[in-house]
């Protein structure tokens, strides 16, 4: 049994079998054999080595004439697969522990993968892939017809990986995947977003969980507290099962009240919107009580069809608006770059400070114009707002508004129907823009605070880097000052100010956000019921006093502590989750 602490990024509790991505990608269905089957198991392993070597030999012969370098790599694989030490260690594990050949092999390989990863030489560290390739080859030979592809798993699993990529999650069967745990990542990593999109628990920043767990190990993932237990004992399993039932009851309770308005006890009405990535999320967003879509991320449309242009965008918007049935939709224009690289994009030293988002759009006006056309046209099908991300200067904003103007004229001249009065807004994601917000407010009709990037750029912390993840603190007083100023600027100019980002879905932060005067937030769909429930338990008068106290503090840790204490005292249901 081993307990690991990571960063909780998607709530929920799950107890299930581990599936290791990267090294395994094949599921080991059985881990132990009967004592009298041991000799057979050893023989099975030897046969698999022989068969694998035979197929490697064939491949080498075929390649030797054409591609010598590949043949040489496969030669190394053959030597690895025939390694006498590997054979004796696997045999020992089978005999001593009654392991299946697959399980024994995985354990031995894991140990050496770890050793290689710890080496100083980067060239040798890269050989990890060769070992993993050999492991995969031997495993697939051993499993033979029993191979379960990632997309058609037979049983439920939790996925353990170094760092989940969109390409990997795309291969997974969402019906069978019940949790994520990764070495890397922060609150806003792809793993976090996918975990919340699938509504399954996820914990990230677990250091080397992917090499500490062997495929088939029993794992508990506690997405509330960020705890992962490898190979739990029976008492822990019983405890967690009970806790999971309690939490499920609580979220059912929240969900049953999801349609009630998000109104504070003293009558201040808030709007809670949903952040979505694909049109099919709209349905659950509405079920969870969303007042609309506050952030529609459109990068997926671009990835699916980089050259599809206007019509592909329009079809997606039409489909979202149809499901929304009159509720408002805020479309964010392409936010490529940073951690979402465009196909064939630039190789940059420092992509987060590079040609990303609106900068990429202004440098590549054609895809940008196509998208704007699609958004403007979609405006006749329902209430649509257009939002520009990552603006840092007023000339950049003016240039973007001018392009929107030009596109509108084109549509008008060619008699295409579009929304002439579409509200335009910007995402405030960099401190430079927050500090000149009054100039921005003169030009647009809404501001949306993109807190993930605003925190990252204000604090100079890469949100995906686990070495500095503890410095990524949305409660840093500088962030609260910026939000407070933005809300006041909005009030002075009669411009709506909303917040979309992870910080709005943290129940203990909500009283502060309401106290700062925010009246519109946007969060992941399945978090809406709890967010609304928390808001309904707040007294605006109370949270304003709390907020004034917090704004006088000098560090984020004290502010978080204050908010935690306040929540325990005033929000019993939230407190239940914190224990």
């Amino acid at each position, binding site marked *: 049994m081993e307990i690991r602490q990571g960063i909780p990024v998607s709530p929920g509790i799950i107890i299930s079998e581990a599936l290791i991505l990267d090294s395994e990608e094949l599921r080991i269905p059985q881990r132990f054999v009967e004592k009298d089957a041991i000799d057979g198991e050893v023989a099975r392993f030897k046969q698999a080595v022989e068969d694998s070597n035979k197929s490697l030999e064939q491949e080498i012969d075929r390649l030797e004439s054409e591609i010598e370098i590949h043949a040489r790599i496969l030669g190394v694989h053959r030597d690895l697969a025939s*390694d006498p*030490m590997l054979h004796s260690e696997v045999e020992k594990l089978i005999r001593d522990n009654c392991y299946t050949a697959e399980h024994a092999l995985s354990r031995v390989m894991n140990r050496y993968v770890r050793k*290689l990863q710890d080496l100083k030489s980067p*060239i*040798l560290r890269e*050989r990890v892939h060769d070992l993993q390739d050999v492991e995969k080859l031997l495993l697939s030979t051993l499993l033979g017809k029993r191979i379960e592809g990632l997309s058609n798993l037979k049983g439920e699993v939790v996925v353990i990986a170094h760092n989940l990529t969109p390409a990997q999650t795309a291969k997974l069967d969402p019906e069978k995947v019940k949790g994520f745990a990764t070495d890397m990542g922060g609150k806003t990593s792809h793993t976090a977003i996918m975990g919340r999109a699938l509504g399954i628990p996820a914990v990230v920043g677990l250091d080397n969980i992917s090499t500490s767990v062997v495929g088939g190990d029993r794992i508990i993932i506690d997405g509330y507290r960020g705890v992962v237990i490898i190979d739990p004992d029976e008492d822990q399993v019983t405890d967690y099962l009970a806790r999971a039932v309690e939490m499920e009851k609580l979220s059912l309770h929240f969900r049953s009240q999801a349609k009630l308005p998000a109104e504070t006890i003293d009558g201040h009405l808030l709007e809670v919107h949903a952040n979505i990535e694909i049109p099919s999320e709209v349905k659950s967003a509405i079920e969870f009580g969303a007042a609309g879509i506050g952030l529609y991320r459109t990068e997926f449309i671009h990835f699916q069809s980089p050259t599809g242009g206007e019509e592909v965008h329009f079809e997606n918007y039409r489909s979202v608006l149809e499901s929304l049935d009159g509720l408002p939709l805020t479309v964010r224009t392409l936010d490529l770059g940073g951690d979402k690289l465009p196909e064939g994009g630039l190789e940059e030293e420092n992509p987060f400070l590079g040609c990303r988002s609106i900068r990429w759009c202004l440098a590549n006006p054609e895809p940008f114009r196509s998208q704007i056309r699609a958004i403007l046209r979609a405006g006749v099908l329902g209430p649509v707002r257009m939002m520009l991300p990552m603006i840092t200067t007023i000339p950049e904003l003016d240039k973007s508004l001018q392009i929107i103007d030009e596109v509108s004229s084109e549509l008008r001249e060619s008699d295409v129907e579009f929304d002439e009065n579409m509200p335009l807004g910007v995402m405030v994601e960099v401190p430079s823009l927050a500090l000149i917000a009054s100039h921005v407010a003169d030009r647009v009709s809404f501001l949306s605070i993109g807190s993930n990037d605003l925190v990252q750029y204000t604090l100079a912390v890469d949100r995906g880097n686990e070495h500095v993840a503890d410095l990524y603190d949305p409660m840093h007083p500088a962030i609260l000052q910026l939000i407070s100023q933005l809300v006041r600027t909005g009030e002075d100019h009669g411009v709506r100010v909303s917040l979309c980002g992870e910080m709005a879905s943290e129940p203990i932060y909500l009283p502060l956000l309401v106290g700062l005067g925010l009246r519109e937030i946007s969060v992941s769909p399945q978090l809406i019921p709890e967010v609304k429930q928390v808001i309904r338990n707040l007294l605006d008068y109370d949270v304003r006093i709390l907020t004034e106290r917090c704004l006088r503090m000098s560090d984020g840790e004290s502010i978080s502590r204050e908010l935690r204490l306040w929540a325990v005292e005033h929000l019993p249901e939230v407190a239940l989750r914190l224990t």
Partner: protein
Amino acid sequence: MSKICQTVKITHDSGLHARASTEFVRLAQRFQAEVSVSRPEGMAVDGKSIIAVMTLGAQLGDEIVIETVGPDATEALEALANLVRLDFHGV
């Protein structure tokens, strides 16, 4: 039968990387003698196991100790030490 050993310095740019390890292990396997390899003051590993030799992590400038024991120990030691000195025939 007694053990004999030799210390050699790695002069290959990439150190004892995958293909260099392969060359070393393939040569070691041609002899009857048992072969072990270690870093000075480190644990000795099986010189006929490519995984073991690779995980030594020996880099350019590092010294390794080759130890042999068995009927053809002298020939084995000489051949293996030479291989390291000749930068694994430039693989």
